[in-house]
């Protein structure tokens, strides 16, 4: 599979990443090599094989509904880059009309 500049730029956008225009050619080449490597599994015969999402025990997990003391708001927000009155603060999301 050939990886185009558009493929890389679109995927970067989906991942909320950007790279300087000058770094793109190297990234496209590296990414192309990686995709080429991993798509080698297209040769594996998989008729009737089910996907396996993890190797652990597949089961539902329940617990008793016991009241416990959770992390305090103060502790939970102690690493926030910006907060106000116990809320995360971000720049304006909806533009003024």
């Amino acid at each position, binding site marked *: 599979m050939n990886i185009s500049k558009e493929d890389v730029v679109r995927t970067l956008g989906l991942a909320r*990443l950007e790279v300087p225009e000058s770094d793109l050619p190297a990234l496209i080449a*590296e990414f192309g090599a990686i995709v080429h490597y991993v798509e080698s599994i297209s040769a*594996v015969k998989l008729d009737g094989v089910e996907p396996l999402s993890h*190797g652990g025990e597949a089961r539902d997990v329940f617990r008793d509904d016991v009241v416990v003391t959770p992390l305090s708001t103060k502790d939970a927000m102690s690493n926030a880059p910006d907060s106000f009155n116990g809320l995360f603060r971000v720049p304006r999301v909806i533009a003024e009309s």
Partner: protein
Amino acid sequence: MANRTLSAIASDVNGGSSTARAMTSHWLDRMAKWNASLGAYLAVDRERSLAEADAIDARIRAGERLPLAGVPVAVKDNLHAQGFPTTCASRMLEGFRPPYDATVVTRLKAAGAVVLGKTNLDEFAMGSSTENSAFHVCRNPWDTTRIPGGSSGGSATAVAADLAPCALGSDTGGSIRQPAALTGTVGLKTTYGRVSRYGLVAFASSLDQVGPMTRRVEDAALLHDVIAGHDPNDATTSSRPVGLAIPSLRQGVKGLRIGIPDEYFTDAVDPQVRARVEAAGKALEGEGATLHRISLPHTAHAIPTYYIVATSEASSNLARYDGVHYGQRNPDAIDINGVYFGSRSKYLGKEVKRRILLGTWCLSSGFYDAFYDRALRVRSLLKADFDAAFTKVDLVLCPTTPTAAFKLGEKVADPVQMYLADILTGACNLAGIPGVSVPCGTVSVDGCDLPVGAQLMGPNWSEALLLRAAYVIEAKCWDPSRVPTFAEARS
């Protein structure tokens, strides 16, 4: 101190002939002397560690007897230990202070251990050489021009150089076993669900496991017995009873059937490495085990499958670094997209971005079926290979790595070559089974003795059996009190 087992340290502290403070001071002093040249630790807090040690000493004075009394432990910096930062070796988490302990850290502390510091890793555990640390490289004490492996390279170097008597690592595709092999230490990846991931910063949630990295097999068994078991805070942990490793450790391997998989002894494996691992097999045979050639036919597809699965999960897990809840925020952002794009682009490293990109691609519309879904189905085949093998043999023996430690900088420019460093370890994580790397000798590379790891893999929940066999290999092929002469080599 490298000749002391963890249980001997605990025995001295429990018996009053030493203290947790004395033990902690000893390794803090060694760390102060040597860490700058090895780069094993990212964060050290002498006062805090000594305060933790004093608290253990107070418990001993009050009459408690603890299995890890006064045992200092180095903790990989993607596990939370309160009072220490957790950075994952990423600029993104610089300054992050965890508000709680990882369950494994809680359990170690309850057993009497003291957190000695936080160890270096590849950023977010993504790498095989610890060169992807955003802060500094980590060097292999056997030859400081070489990598210690990764991603738990800091923990491996700390133990190998005796800057800690033991450590915790995490293993997503080999990140405990590969650095253990390259530094002459023991590394155990447990069955998926055996050890809690609560407080481990997530990389690939269906693959990640926390495990011990130690100087000797007995120490790994002791740490396993302390950290393993169900945790209500991690729904993927199993509630089945833990098969303790210490009680059966010395029962030997008589009658055990050991599988030797053809696909792990190919020309891709260095002949000297292969010879050492074959000698480990002979050692097991000499103690009454039988060796059987087996096939794990889908092995060649393990690493491509691993990179699709791991990066897909990582692209989802690392979406949380959005510059809003914790971690760094782009200070120049004037709108919400500036927060998202700016923070992630500025503070995540190159390899992390590359993997997020691959994972996002594999999950994106139009490619999901050809990449992610296909990889999950190959994963089924890889697991079926092991399931079939374990109807014929009890354990599998193979090399942990295809070569001994490579040079710093040797593979940095070629991501695919770097990915192949995990070629013998990734299938174990995909299948969810346990694996251990135990040193089985050294090879001479450019006039330098470098350690080789033998890898044992077993069916789910076979940790005690794996460690029993590893104990025999260690006894026959290795001197665990040997500390590499990095000091002399440096001067």
